[in-house]
């Protein structure tokens, strides 16, 4: 079969049309059953499993030539795997790419949700390593599938409650389980729990692809997404005493960078676009090397 994509010898967006149709059918089911993991016949991609092949297959199946694609890993556009995936789609789909959250129509992400609120005309595609929220409590697929079918999520609550009994609080900091639209318990991918509230009632469509585990799931726009908790131990997100050393933000997720072997540390926004945008607006942090004249 002749291929007609921008990369000679390959179809538009790499996958052949049969494969895209199969993934598209799975995506529609995923949207129709929020939080349910739809099995799909994941293909080998030219990147290794565990490196975003699920997200890439979803992106390849939704991408149009006039899309603008942003790819982030750990919130950053310039991490090597994000660069590699962005280059892949620039090459195979000839789409425009961007690092600006606001300019992207499709955002593929690993481990973060952008700080800037997403819009209705955007789609967020998550790379998911282990889609099954119950997997570390029960390794068998036959068992976890039954648990989802029966809404039998007691095991998860027991796990969280054991944390409280042992540590006085819930000790899950990322991949913190959520309940979608009052039915399915879902793994938000290994995003920090800081990002969980952004999933709730989000204007954008959120799609999740797990290539090696062969599952696709979705959260439609404006859907209720609740982080599991208890009345007396309500869900709470991480907070920092520090502000971003570069842009001074106090409301973003911070990475900790070790500067030297004498304990020197810098906290800075993990979302590089968010940080750069703030700095362009004149905000400065304590370690920006410039006087901190806040723009406010």
């Amino acid at each position, binding site marked *: *079969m002749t*291929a007609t994509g921008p990369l000679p010898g*390959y179809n538009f967006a790499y*996958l*052949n049309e*049969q*494969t895209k149709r*199969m993934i598209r059918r799975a995506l529609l089911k995923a949207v129709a059953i929020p939080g349910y993991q739809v*099995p799909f*016949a*994941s*293909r*080998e*991609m030219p990147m*290794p*499993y*565990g*490196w975003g*092949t699920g997200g890439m297959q979803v992106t390849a199946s939704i991408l149009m030539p006039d899309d603008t694609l942003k790819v982030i890993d*750990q*919130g*950053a556009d*310039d*991490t*090597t*795997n*994000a*660069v*590699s995936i962005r*280059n892949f789609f620039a090459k195979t789909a000839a789409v425009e790419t961007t690092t600006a959250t606001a300019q992207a129509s499709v955002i593929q992400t690993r*481990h*973060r949700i952008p700080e800037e609120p997403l819009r209705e005309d955007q789609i967020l595609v998550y790379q998911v*390593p282990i889609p099954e929220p119950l997997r570390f409590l029960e*390794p068998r*697929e*036959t068992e976890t599938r039954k648990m989802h079918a029966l809404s039998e999520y007691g095991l998860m609550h027991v796990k969280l409650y054991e944390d409280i009994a042992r*540590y*006085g609080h819930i*000790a899950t*900091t*990322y*991949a913190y389980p959520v309940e979608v639209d009052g039915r399915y318990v879902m793994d938000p991918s*290994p995003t*920090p729990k*800081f990002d969980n509230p952004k999933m709730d009632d989000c204007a954008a469509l959120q799609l999740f692809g797990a290539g*090696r585990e*062969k599952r696709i799931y979705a959260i439609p726009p404006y859907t209720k997404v609740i982080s599991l908790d208890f009345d007396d131990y309500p869900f709470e997100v*991480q907070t*920092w005493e520090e502000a971003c050393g*570069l842009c001074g933000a106090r409301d973003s*997720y911070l*990475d*900790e960078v070790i*500067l030297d072997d004498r304990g020197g540390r810098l906290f*800075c926004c*993990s979302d*590089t676009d968010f940080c750069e945008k703030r700095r362009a607006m004149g905000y400065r942090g304590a*370690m*920006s*090397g410039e006087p901190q004249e806040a723009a406010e």
Partner: protein
Amino acid sequence: MYVAVKGGQQAIANAHKLSAEERRGNPDVPEIGVDQIDQQLSIAVDRVMTEGSLYDRQLAALAIKQARGDMIEAIFLVRASRTTLPRFGYSVPMETSDMAIRRRISATFKDIPGGQVLGPTFDYQHRLIDPALAEGGAPEPAETAPADVDAQSPKVLGLLGQEGLMEAAGDGDDDAEIGDLTRDPLDFPADRDLRLQNLVRGDEGFILSLGYSTQRGYARGHAFAGEIRMGEVAVSFVPEELGFEIEIGEVALTECEMVTQFKGSSKVPPQFTRGYGLAFGQCERKAMSMALVDRALRAGELGEDRVAPAQDEEFVMSHSDSVEATGFVEHLKLPHYVDFQAELELVRRMRAEAEGKQAGTGEAAE
């Protein structure tokens, strides 16, 4: 002023160049050709085709060259290439009893109709490094016997079957739809067709070790190599527009049928049961290991207790694929700053709490 680490793009480009340089090695040494790999590393090519699920010697040889001899990497390259190929149709089931035999042995009978054919094997070779091979040179020609065009080599297990001592091959339902792991996601419990597909694609080392474990008591049963055969088998296809079968080529296969004694159950009388292995080219170790694991995975169907790893289909099938496994293990190289930051914060908090508690108890004791 602190500047965040940048330059992923340039770093990747440079790493690719460096890797290509390393692949080539010293330019004073002649470059290896794909034909040389195909002809002189033929068993490597066979393995890449088998686990890559694609019968294309040249492509597999090229993958080995590109992967610098890293077999799992080469298999991965072939799989990724396979992804882009559209499917035109399905061949007619191949008839391995019509194989043009290059090797055929049975460990269960001293002589068999059609004879034992040792063929090109490492068996019975003294594994002494051969310094002369370093120099190269033409090997001594092997003796050939005149081809016996009438020779029939019936399946050994079929001979046992005539006595009623051997279970029938398969469930006898030729019309049953055959699953396809590459088209439908794996689902448990999995039928034997899917299990066999999974084992063929599975990592040779993993399947070998699992097969070995069944010999050491982790799943009952002593297996015999009923028959191992290797050679060329014709592939036929029925084009929609013709409506009749045409031969489109041949593939080299290694087939292994293992025989295991079975004490019988409430439903089945005592008899011998089968384990089946099949691989492209000459992959005998793989075919034998696969046959052992296939038999072990039939525990449920035969009413045996599932007690060993090799009998646990979820465990075996979910972890056999080297491309899946290597990807996920190696993904630990990817940055995890964000999750690690979350853990760092948690551990600091828990330590502070623990220290607070200790300080508290200390004061109370004073």
